[in-house]
């Protein structure tokens, strides 16, 4: 479930970058893409991401597989917005009664699809290349988030794969008792509910035990924690952040110069 094929090795440049720097860079790019309403600005941002990819150490194959649903989603966004636009301007390209596509609506739809692409691609790039432990460490140290929240989430994350194994065990045990969903949807639903109940009973017990073990090791005892691994911004991290600002500014400047830049109102 959470052990998706990694899109880069642990030594890749982007994997070693500071998680907070990566988050900030993505925030800059996504905000630019979401504020700009034209089609050129997000396209330029996407192009910049594509150009930067070879320097990050990301493997293109696994990344493309991770993004394949995104392309489908973005395509749907373009189509829906092109067809159901409030007003159609320019030449009519397709007309079937209520379903119409015009050059104006197609352009507007494409712009929205491209903005979705920028935000989603940048987000995937960060979360697919960041170890959850490093992220929690960085959030604690740099943004001073409460460890009770970040480390609690981390511990819960560690237990998730156990749940899927547990689900399989419970389903098998149900078959042994003579319970099986089969083709009856009502029976399937009831079986699902009862399996879920058993799963939750186990999960709650387990969470209680884990909490006791964490308490016993002094977690959240009021002493300010130290950090085994130092997380801070290094010069390459500042460079990454600066690059994100530069690319955003350049994209906006470029589309303004060409007279297409508009802002979402």
């Amino acid at each position: 479930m959470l052990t998706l094929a990694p899109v880069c090795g642990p030594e890749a440049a982007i994997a070693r970058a500071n998680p907070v720097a990566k988050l900030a860079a993505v925030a800059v790019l996504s905000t630019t893409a979401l504020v700009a309403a034209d089609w050129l600005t997000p396209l330029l941002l996407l192009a910049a991401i594509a150009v930067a990819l070879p320097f990050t150490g990301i493997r293109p194959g696994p990344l493309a597989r991770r993004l394949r649903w995104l392309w489908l989603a973005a395509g749907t966004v373009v189509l829906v917005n092109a067809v159901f636009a409030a007003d159609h301007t320019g030449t009519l390209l397709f007309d079937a009664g209520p379903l119409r596509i015009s050059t104006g609506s197609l352009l507007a739809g494409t712009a929205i699809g491209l903005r979705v692409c920028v935000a989603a691609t940048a987000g995937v790039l960060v979360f697919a290349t960041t170890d959850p432990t490093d992220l929690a460490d960085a959030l604690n140290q740099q943004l001073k988030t409460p460890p009770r929240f970040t480390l609690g989430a981390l511990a819960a994350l560690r237990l998730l794969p156990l749940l899927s194994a547990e689900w399989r065990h419970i389903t098998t045990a149900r078959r042994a008792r003579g319970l099986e969903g089969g083709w009856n949807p009502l029976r399937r639903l009831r079986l699902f509910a009862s399996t879920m109940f058993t799963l939750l009973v186990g999960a709650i017990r387990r969470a209680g035990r884990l909490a006791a073990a964490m308490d016993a090791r002094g977690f959240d005892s009021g002493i300010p924690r130290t950090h085994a691994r130092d997380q801070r911004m290094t010069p390459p991290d500042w460079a990454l952040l600066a690059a994100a600002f530069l690319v955003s500014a350049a994209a906006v400047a470029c589309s303004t110069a060409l007279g297409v830049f508009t802002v979402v109102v």
Partner: protein
Amino acid sequence: MIKVEFRGFAWRHAGRRAQAVSDVDLRVEPGERVLLLGPSGSGKSTLLAALAGLLTADSGEQDGDVLLDGRPALELQPRVGILFQDPETQLVMARSGDDVAFGLENQAVPPDRIWPRVHRALDAVGFPYEPSRDTHALSGGEQQRLALAGVLARRPGLILLDEPTANLDPEGAEAIREALRSALADTEATMIVIEHRVADLLDLVDRVIALGPGGTLIADGPAEKVLAEHGDHLAAQGVWVPGAPVPRRPAPAPGDTALRGEGLTLVHPRADRPALDGVSFDLRAGELLAVTGPNGSGKSTLALLAGGLAAPTRGRATVPGEPRPLHRLPARRLATRVGSVFQDPEHQFVTATVRDELAFGPRQAGWPKDRVDARVSELLERLRLAPLAAANPHTLSGGEARRLSVAGALAAAPGVLLLDEPTFGQDRRTWGELVDLTADIRDEGTALLAVTHDRDFAAALATRELVLDAGRAREGEHR
């Protein structure tokens, strides 16, 4: 080294009427190594939790005092380390080294001193991998050793061990004991351990304290003296006293074949070898076939395939009078042919009361109401579950839940019963009950197959043994 004192200590868990322990007066001197014995429900774990500072005011009601070096236990929490029995729920982090570091970070150890202490603790327990090792990739025994490293790295003055080997297979348990031996030799810390299997730990302790129900003191003194004077009594209370006789229940001559496995093979996609590779066997009415072998040898896979709960890649499991292989049978029909009992009884509970749990199988099989009622009454009596008939199965004790899961699988009178580690983690008394119950079922003509690590269980009941190794069957030893 910490001095431990209970003075008139009593504890009632929030929401319970009865006290878990009452009037406990105990003293453990600094540096002593103590084994705490007692039946289930004697409040041993409650005492350790109190010492570990885990009984906070909002979780129950306390009388008397728990003192460490003369101060309330909660104040000394940073100097106490506790190891629990379930390895899976003691690890917090994804990377092994980080998990050991977690306890040091909480203690505000300066960053430059954390990693040397992590490495030393990992060495001390014989952790065989790099600190960056994923904690999910570890076996149960390795996880438990890692959790022990997490305890030792904090340099506790009091080490508490709450059944540290109960959830482990024999190899994992021995590795933990080995790690404990070397770690305890290196520290002067006071140590208190709870364990049912006494024999393996006696060399680590110099004093035994035996508790009765509610935490009353039964015996206290050097191990040999306590075991010699109170051995029989303790064995009756559920303690595995070394040298106490283990029952044998020889089987009558077996009957006809009740379950046949032919070339059972299971290959997981992307695995480098089959989980099970061409295993054949004949299981006859009135016998118990013990399936043994190291971890990962395919024992549990065999139980799943033989029980018709997973589809084999090749081969088939069949019962007489049923032309289809078991994995093709609809669940309702399967449950009347072969019963399976899993390691975790709670996975099998499908109703809200003990009575319904027993009636479930027969009702599914379409038995008339009076026959179902008669069967349920009979099982309630036989398995001594009658007083609990209206209880929710999820509220039963470990031993009761285990008996109920066996009874539930037997209710629809299948001719074959498969058991996966039936005695895992049970105290001596529950163990004895399970041996008697299994022997009765066997002698009534049910064919039994038991996957087990438990040599004593196999010796007491098995007519034959099927030894698995890396998915293949070794020659079965006939007794």
